[in-house]
C-alpha cells in the first residue's frame, strides 16, 4: 500500500460549502483521501458529516465547491454514475432490499460490472444466464466470508438490525469498490463485533479498497491512518489519531476532555 499512498488523492473535496435555509452546514471544507488509505471523519452531532457524505456520494449537489474522484470532476454526476466509477457508500440506517433475500442483495453488488439489457434478459440470452451464475458465485463467496451463510435465503428485512448492517457492507464489497464510504458502520454492534469489523476493514484495505469512515466510535476510528475532525461545518484538525487526541481544540470541541 505504501506505493499507492504516495500517489495523488483518489478523492479530493475542495471548498465545499452548503447551507439549508439560513443554516450553514458546511463552510469551505477541503480534504483529500489518498488511494489505499483508511480515512476517518469524526465530529459531534450536527457537524455536517452526513451532509458531506451525501455530497460526496451524489445525493446532494453542493452550493459551492467541487468533488473530484480519480482526477475527474464528479460534483454534478448522479449517484449511479459515481457508483459505476467505483464510489460506493453505506447508510447510517442500513438500507437493505427488505423483500429480497440476503443472497439477492449480495448478487446485486455485481450490477455495476455487468451489462446485459432488458431485451437479452427477457430472452434469457447467453450473457444473461452467465451473469446470473457470476452473481450467484460472488454472492455465495462474499456471504461466506462475512458469516452470512445461515441467512442467505431469508428476506433481508427479516434479518436482525445488526446483521443488516453486515449485509449492506458485504453488498458494498461485492461491488469491488475503489472507494468505500461507511456511515457509522459500528452503531448497534457490540465490542466483539466492533473488533471483528476493525479486522475486516483492515483486510479489505489490504486488498486495495480505499475506505472513508464516519464514526463516533473511537474504538473503530483507531483503524484509520488519517482522521479529519469536522466541527460546525469546518475541518478543525487533521492527522493521525494520536495527534488528534492531543489537539487542544479537538479536546474542547469534541472529545470533551
Amino acid at each position, binding site marked *: 500500500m505504501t506505493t499507492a499512498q504516495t500517489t495523488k488523492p483518489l478523492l479530493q473535496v475542495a471548498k465545499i460549502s452548503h447551507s439549508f435555509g439560513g443554516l450553514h452546514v458546511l463552510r469551505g471544507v477541503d480534504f483529500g483521501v489518498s488511494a489505499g488509505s483508511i480515512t476517518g471523519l469524526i465530529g459531534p452531532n450536527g457537524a455536517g458529516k452526513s451532509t458531506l457524505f451525501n455530497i460526496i456520494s451524489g445525493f446532494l449537489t453542493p452550493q459551492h465547491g467541487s468533488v473530484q474522484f480519480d482526477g475527474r470532476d464528479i460534483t454534478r454526476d448522479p449517484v449511479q454514475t459515481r457508483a459505476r466509477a467505483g464510489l460506493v457508500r453505506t447508510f447510517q440506517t442500513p438500507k437493505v432490499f427488505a423483500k*429480497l433475500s440476503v443472497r439477492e442483495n449480495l448478487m*446485486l453488488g455485481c450490477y455495476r460490472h455487468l451489462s*446485459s439489457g432488458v431485451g437479452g434478459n427477457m430472452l434469457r440470452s447467453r450473457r444473461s444466464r452467465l451473469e446470473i451464475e457470476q452473481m450467484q458465485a460472488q454472492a455465495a463467496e462474499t456471504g461466506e466470508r462475512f458469516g452470512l451463510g445461515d441467512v442467505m435465503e431469508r428476506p433481508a428485512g427479516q434479518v436482525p438490525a445488526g446483521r443488516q448492517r453486515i449485509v449492506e457492507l458485504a453488498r*458494498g464489497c461485492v461491488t469491488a469498490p475503489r472507494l468505500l464510504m461507511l456511515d457509522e458502520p459500528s452503531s448497534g454492534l457490540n465490542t466483539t463485533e466492533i473488533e471483528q469489523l476493525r479486522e475486516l476493514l483492515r483486510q479489505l484495505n489490504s486488498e486495495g479498497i480505499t475506505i472513508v469512515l464516519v464514526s463516533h466510535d473511537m474504538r473503530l476510528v483507531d483503524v484509520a491512518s488519517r482522521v479529519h475532525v469536522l466541527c460546525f461545518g469546518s475541518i478543525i484538525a487533521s492527522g493521525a489519531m494520536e495527534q488528534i487526541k492531543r489537539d487542544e481544540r479537538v479536546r474542547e470541541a469534541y472529545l470533551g476532555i
Partner: protein
Amino acid sequence: MSPVRHAIVWSVALALWVALPFVATRHVVDLLVFAGLYTIAGLGVAFLLGQCGIVSLAQSVFYGIGAYCAAWFCVQKGLPSPVGMAAGIVLSTSIAALVGWPILRLSGYFLALATLALGIIGQVLFLEWDGITGGTLGIGGIPRIAPFGFAFDTPLRFYFLVWPIALLLLALHHNLLHSRNGLALRAMRDSPEAAAVLGVDIHRLKVQMFVLSAALGSLAGGLFAHYVTFVSVDSFAIDRSISFLLLAVLGGVYTVWGPALGALFITILPQWLSRLGDIHAFVFAAALIAAVILLPEGFGGAIRNWWRARAAK
C-alpha cells in the same frame, strides 16, 4: 414437487387449455379471447405497478394506437397486418419514451395524474383526428390476420392465436424478473437510494419499463382490431385504462401470471352474473370489493402464498 408430478400438472393444464374452447360455447370462447387480449395489455400495467410502483392510466392510449395503426395501415394503405401492428408498436414505444422521460421524474400520485392526463389527451385526439381514426364512426372492414391463407376468423381460431402470445409474453416477463435488471427493479422498489448506490440508473430503467408496457398495450390493441374488424373511439376511452389497472390489481401485481387471472375475472364474471338480471352490476361490484379487501395481493398473490405455506409444511 418431483419432476414427474411437475410434468403431469403441466400436461393436465395444457390438455384443459386445448379442450376448453371446444366444450365452451362460442360466446364464452369470445370472452376468453378478450381475456387473452386484456392479459397482454394488463401485464404491462401490472409489471409497472408491481415492479416499479408506477400507476399507469395511459394504457388505453397505447391500446388505441395499436388498434388504429392496424386499422389504418390495412384498410387505408392495404398493407399486410404485421406492418400495421409493427407500426403501432414503433409509434407507441416512441411516444412512451418521449413522454415517459419527463413524467417518470415524478412519483406516486403526481405520476399517476400525469399518466391520467396522457390517457385523456389520447381519448380526445382519437375523437378529434377523425381523418385518421374515423372519430365516432370508427374504421370498419379491418381484414383478419391470415398468415399463409389461414384466417384467424372465428373466436376458436383466435383463441389459439392470442393465448400462446399472451403466455409467451408472461414467460418473457418471468425471465426478466429473474435476471440482472429484474433484480434491480425489485431492489429499487425496496430502496431506490441503495439501488442507485450499486449503479442502477433508476430513471432509465423506469423509462424502459414504461416503453415495454406501451409495446404490450399496442400489441394487444393491434390484435383486438384484427379480431373485431371494427374500431371506434369508444374502445379506447379512459375507462379502458381503468379496466387494465383493475385487472392488474385483482390478479396481483407481484406475480407475473396474476394479470391472466385478473383478465379472466373481469371478462367472464360480469357476463356470467348477467343472468341474475338487473342486480348483476351490484353483485359484480360487491365481488370486486370483496376480492380487493380479502386478497390484498390479488389472486396471484393469494395462490402463491397458499402454495408456499403448503410447501413449508
